[in-house]
């Protein structure tokens, strides 16, 4: 898994390509968050995501140029079972819920578990998650999940960074993704230093040559 990532995501300018996965219930605003962050656009008419797609964005993190590849996924749980195809090599996972939808908050835990099972990062405990409560633009009367409760949840899961955003009104989106990028970069670097230099490195070289050499 990491072998592929190195080949794919790292380039010789020692910049990084980071892979971020956005998960959460259907309709919490995953696609909107991604598009607001990458394209600075909001549309009320996104269709329900089917399958998966990604966008990329280049950002500076502590003077390092990193390319984030942000994966947007279908929100209905059953469609996650094919997620292995794109969970692999993730550097950060963003868990999104709708602050006006209690249910979408309650499922965060299972999204997290499912991700850990499918992506099986080397160190599940230290794998970075960021939690986002979206749709704070909707009037207060409809809010179902108090901020306190969300923060308590994040604290209990190992002090996960927590943001409340509005993809519609571009509130806090930039800030959230800045932190996401930072955590993803740290994860990527940690992966790099925690070994993985054995036989797999040799495979990497072979795979790399093979891949680029393919003229077919």
């Amino acid at each position, binding site marked *: 898994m990491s072998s592929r990532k190195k080949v794919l995501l790292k380039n010789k*300018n020692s910049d990084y390509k980071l892979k971020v996965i956005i998960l959460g219930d259907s309709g919490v605003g995953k696609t909107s968050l991604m598009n607001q962050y990458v394209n600075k656009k909001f549309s009320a008419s996104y269709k329900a995501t089917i399958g998966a797609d990604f966008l990329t964005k280049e950002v500076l993190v502590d003077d390092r140029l990193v390319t984030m590849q942000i994966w947007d996924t279908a929100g*209905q749980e059953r469609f996650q079972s094919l997620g292995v*195809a*794109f969970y692999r090599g993730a550097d950060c996972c963003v868990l999104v819920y709708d602050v*006006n939808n209690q249910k979408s908050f309650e499922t965060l835990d299972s999204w997290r578990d499912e991700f850990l099972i499918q992506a099986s990062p080397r160190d599940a405990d230290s794998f970075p998650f960021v939690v986002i409560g979206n749709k704070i633009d909707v009037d207060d009367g409809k809010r179902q999940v108090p901020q306190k409760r969300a923060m308590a949840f994040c604290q209990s899961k190992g002090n996960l960074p927590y943001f409340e955003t509005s993809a519609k009104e571009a509130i806090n989106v930039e800030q959230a993704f800045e932190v996401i990028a930072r955590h993803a970069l740290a994860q990527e670097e940690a992966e790099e230093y925690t070994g993985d230099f054995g036989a797999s490195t*040799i*495979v990497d070289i072979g*795979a790399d040559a093979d891949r680029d050499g*393919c003229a077919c």
Partner: protein
Amino acid sequence: MPEEFTPPASPTASFYDLSEDDEDYSTITHTSTGRGVILLYTKSKVYVHPTPSAKDNIPGFIALIQQKPPTGETPSTASSPVVNPANLLLAWLPESALGSAYDTYVKVDLLDTSAPPKQTYLVPPPPISTGNSSLGSYSFSVPVSQIYSLLVRPPSLGWWWGSIVINSRSGDSFPALFFHDSECASTIAQSKARTQRNFDPFGENGELFWGGDEVLRWLKRFVKVERSQVERTVYLIDPTKDDLLSFGQKPVIDSTAGRDRAVATASGSTDIAAAVMDPFTKAIKSARWTLLEQFAKVTQFSRQTASNIIDNPSLPPQVRKLLKNPDVISLQDDFDSARLYLARWAMGIAEQSEKERAKIVWKREDIMEMEDSAVGEFEILDIEAGNIRGDGDRRRVVEMDEWSSWWNKTSGRLEITVDEVKERIFHGGCDAAVRKEAWLFLLEVYPWDSTKDERAALMNSRRDEYVRLKGKWWDDLTRREGQGEAGEYWRDQKNRIEKDVHRTDRNIPIFAGEDTPHPDPDSQYSTIGTNVHLEQMKDMLLTYNEYNTTLGYVQGMSDLLAPIYAVFQDDAVAFWAFVGFMERMERNFLRDQSGMRAQLVTLDQLVMLMDPVLWKHLEKAESTNFFFFFRMILVWYKREFEWNDVLRLWESMWTNYLSGQFHLFVTLAVLERHRAVIMDHLQHFDEVLKYINELSGTIELNSTLIRAEALFYKFQRTVEASDRRNGFPSPGTATPMVRLTHRRTTSSAPSASSENSASASKGKAVADKDGPEITEPLRALLSRNIVRVEKKEPAEDEAGKGKTPVRE
């Protein structure tokens, strides 16, 4: 404008003498006639491609010729550009027609065109044609004053040869002229000279030099040549003010009118088809001109991805050089992948050409050309394609008259065979009015052998049943409001449906409105409003949730229902048609995704069988999970095609005319269409996925259907051939195909790896003594039966728990 034109009189004997009398120039006369017109410039190896087959290409010369000036004017040559354009001819002559003048043409071709010619070369006058009168023999010449515009397509990635199409003021187009630069002595010399002079193969605008540039340069010496700002491939010759206003310049006031006109110029006549006939070759032989132009449009193109692509050894040197050009580098900001970009762009051109072709009546040649261009070594569609395309009648839309003629007027019984009906709908599709009836048969609401009365009775009972099912949830307050799991689950489903309906096909007029207040003040859409059709959609989906309790509503179903509802606009009728559709789509939505998985695996095997080379490439790219076709398969291309195309595609697939799983051949057709690009540019799963995702809205339906059909026949033949070789298969013995799983740790040398795969696997869809293995899932593709979910093994209840999140 054509009226104003009088063709210049044929050159007279005195004219021929004139040139010889011209003292400023030593004159070489044409040996056989001793007189002729002045050959100012010419370029060799300019071909007409009368058919898509390369062996029919006719090599010739494009030439700028000066003929007799009207009396009173002094004779002029290239050195004195004051020549009446009416006396200039732009001509194309096949090599074979030149006779002894051939040598003169060769000589002039090789002259240094940067300086005025020292000599005057005379050649026999070419036949003058202002229309398509001389199309039969292909050679033509047209007075420059009669040229309205040139459609100029430089060679580019995937377009091996640049081409020029001449459009006359009378609205005619001449056959596209293809510049085979690599064969043309003068172009080779000129581009070499440029490189030596500037150490840079690019022209002033960063363009790579090609033969067509020279033609434009010739013309610019005598006439005004304006590039259209609207349609960048169109160059206007001596445009009038009106023309310039319309589409010469960037449109200021009425941009749409300008665009329309430009488009009309570019695609208005069938001869233009020739201009788009450039084969889309799988090899990138040259990347030029437009490549840079296109790069300039990409605002986000990352530096490091560009360096990746530079490192790719399969990249042609021209592209590599181009990418190192400082201008290009400066444009590289942030982009997924240079390869991906290149791929998409190259395909964009191919798709565009396909769309332009589609405006023209399908011809047998088109499909032949399509094979040549896109499929490369993967030779499909040979005989069938011609047959499929050949009978234009079969692809005629089924109109009401034809449909009614199949049914007995009094009993309402079908009077032709079901197969005949299906064949017609499969190939032609239905007119909108026919859909309301035909779809009910295709979706098995009505039996084909029913009478009018039986159908009426059936529909009555279906309507009652719909009302009853709807009442089940409508009246059930414990679910609507009650606590407990059932209520919770039901409300979750209701919310899910609500969310999805409000984001399904809202661009379609009937679903667009928000004029009705939302009935539920607690809904998140209560402030936005709804409309009656959205509400009907919600009711139908909730009723389906009730009807199929094991499955319930799953995301994607709203996409499947919307077209059906839009056609019938009657909730009960649409509901039962939807139920019929869901019979075959149910497996797509199973909780364990086994149905989707099975189809992706079948697709994997199908590609391995039909195109092992591509399959190997996808395997290397870690893409044989075929996940990037998930969306297409899940909702049957609903997100890939425009609304009307979806209707047409679905009714074709509903017929099961060739296969109950014809949709997989459509997928294969899409894949094969993009084969060259995928093989050349896409090397990783994410690149392939992105590329395939972004095909949405670009796929040309007709050619895809034809390709899919041809692929089916080829598949059928492959299976039959395999069966013949192996003796007839005993159905039970077929073993599952084993995946080629050798790791990339082995040498990447092609010979070594193919040896490996041959010995290490039993999969061997690749050549093998016994031929490919036909697995059970593959064999099932030959069946016209649809794959239904076995009811005795119901899917896990939606409310059921597992390790997965409780709620979806």
